C-alpha cells in the first residue's frame, strides 16, 4: 500500500553514509560519483520492493515496459541527487550547473513581503531549491516537514549545515501550522511537499498517469486556511552536473469563504496532480517515490 514508505527504513547505514560524505568532501565530486555505480548495483540487487515499485512507475511514465536498465538508471539518478545534497549543504553549489526557470514569480513576492507556500514533490531534488534560497541569496525560507522521516540522512547532512536545519517547522503538533501562519505573515516562503499522504491524513483520489492514485489534500487546505498564494517548484536533475529549477505560480488565494473550500481544494489538488504528471513525464527518472504509489500490489 502507498503508506508503506512511512515504515520503510532508509537503506544504507550511518557508517556507509559517513564514508561517502568523507569521500565526497575530501576527494571531490567526480571520485564520489564513480561510487554511484556500485551503489546502484547494490540497491538494484538488494532493494527488491523499491525495484518493483520503480518498474511499475516507469512502465507508466515511459509508456512502455521498463527494462532492468531503466530501473538502474532510476536508482542511479536518485543516488546522484542524494550525493549532491552533500555539496549543496556544504555550500558547494558552484560545482553544479543550476538553471532557474521563472524565479521572478518567487523573488517578486519576497520583495513585496508577501508570504506564500512553495509546494514541491518527491520529483527531483528539494535540496537544490533550499540551497539556492538560504545559501546564495539568504531568502526567507521555512520548510514544513515530518521530522522523523529520513532521520539518518537528515542528521548527517544537517551536521554540515545547521542553518538548513534551523529552517524546519516540524509537522504534527497543534502549533505547527501556527508557526506556518506566523512565518507567512512575516513574508517568508514556506516549502512543503504535496505528493505523499501520511497515515490518517485526508486524501482524494485522482487520475495520475492513467490510474487512480491518492493525493493528500492537506497542502491546499493549508493554503485555503492561511489564504496564502501557492507557487509550485520542481528541482529536476538532468544528469552530469545539471539541474533545472522550475517555478510555476499555481494560485492566488484559494476559496475566500469556507463554504466553497472543499470544492476549491479538490480543484487545486487536481491541478497540482496534472503539473506533477507533466514534469514526471519530462523527467521520468526524477521520481523519488520508491513505493507502490498506486496501490497496485
Amino acid at each position, binding site marked *: 500500500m502507498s503508506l508503506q514508505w512511512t515504515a520503510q527504513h532508509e537503506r544504507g547505514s550511518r557508517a556507509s553514509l559517513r564514508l561517502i560524505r568523507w569521500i565526497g568532501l575530501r576527494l571531490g565530486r567526480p571520485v564520489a560519483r564513480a561510487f554511484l555505480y556500485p551503489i546502484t548495483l547494490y540497491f538494484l540487487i538488494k532493494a527488491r520492493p523499491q525495484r518493483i515499485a520503480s518498474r511499475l512507475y516507469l512502465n507508466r511514465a515511459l509508456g512502455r515496459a521498463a527494462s532492468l536498465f531503466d530501473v538502474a538508471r532510476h536508482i542511479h539518478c536518485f543516488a546522484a541527487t542524494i550525493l549532491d545534497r552533500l555539496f549543496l549543504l556544504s555550500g558547494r553549489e558552484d560545482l553544479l550547473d543550476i538553471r532557474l526557470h521563472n524565479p521572478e514569480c518567487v523573488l517578486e513576492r519576497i520583495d513585496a513581503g508577501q508570504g506564500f507556500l512553495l509546494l514541491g514533490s518527491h520529483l527531483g531534488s528539494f535540496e537544490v531549491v533550499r540551497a539556492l534560497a538560504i545559501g546564495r541569496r539568504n531568502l526567507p525560507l521555512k520548510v514544513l516537514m515530518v521530522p522523523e522521516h529520513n532521520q539518518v540522512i537528515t542528521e548527517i547532512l544537517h551536521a554540515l549545515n545547521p542553518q538548513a536545519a534551523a529552517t524546519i517547522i516540524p*509537522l*504534527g*503538533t*497543534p*502549533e*505547527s*501550522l*501556527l*508557526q*506556518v*501562519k*506566523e512565518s507567512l505573515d512575516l513574508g517568508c516562503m514556506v516549502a512543503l511537499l504535496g505528493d505523499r499522504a501520511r497515515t490518517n491524513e485526508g486524501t482524494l483520489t485522482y487520475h495520475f498517469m492513467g490510474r487512480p492514485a491518492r493525493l493528500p489534500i*492537506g497542502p491546499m*487546505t*493549508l493554503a485555503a*486556511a*492561511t489564504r496564502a498564494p501557492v507557487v509550485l517548484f520542481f528541482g529536476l536533475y538532468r544528469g552530469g552536473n545539471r539541474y533545472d529549477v522550475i517555478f510555476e505560480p499555481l494560485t492566488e488565494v484559494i476559496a475566500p469563504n*469556507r463554504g466553497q473550500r472543499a470544492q476549491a481544494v479538490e480543484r487545486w489538488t487536481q491541478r497540482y496532480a496534472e503539473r506533477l504528471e507533466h514534469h514526471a513525464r519530462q523527467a521520468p527518472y526524477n521520481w523519488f517515490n520508491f513505493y507502490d504509489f498506486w496501490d497496485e500490489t
Partner: protein
Amino acid sequence: METLAPLEQEVAQLIIETLHLDGMQVSEISPTAPLFGDGLGLDSIDALELSLAVTQTYGVTISSQDPNVRSIFASLRDLCAHIAANRTH
C-alpha cells in the same frame, strides 16, 4: 458531564462554528477532554483556524513560540483560562 462556565459555553460555540462540527451541541464538549487527538479529534489545521478565530473574537493571540502553547490547547477549560487572562475585548 460537567456543566460549562459561561465563557466555556461561548468558546465551545465558537469551536463548533469555526470548525463546522455540524450536528455537535455545546453540551457535548467536555471542558476537560483533550481538544486534539483522542478527545474532540481536532487536527493542526483546526488548531490554526481556532487560534485565528480566538484572535478575531477576543483579541488574544496564540503564538507558536509561547512555551505554554501545548497546554493552551490541552482542553476547552485551558483554552478559556488563556483567553480570560489575556483578552482585550
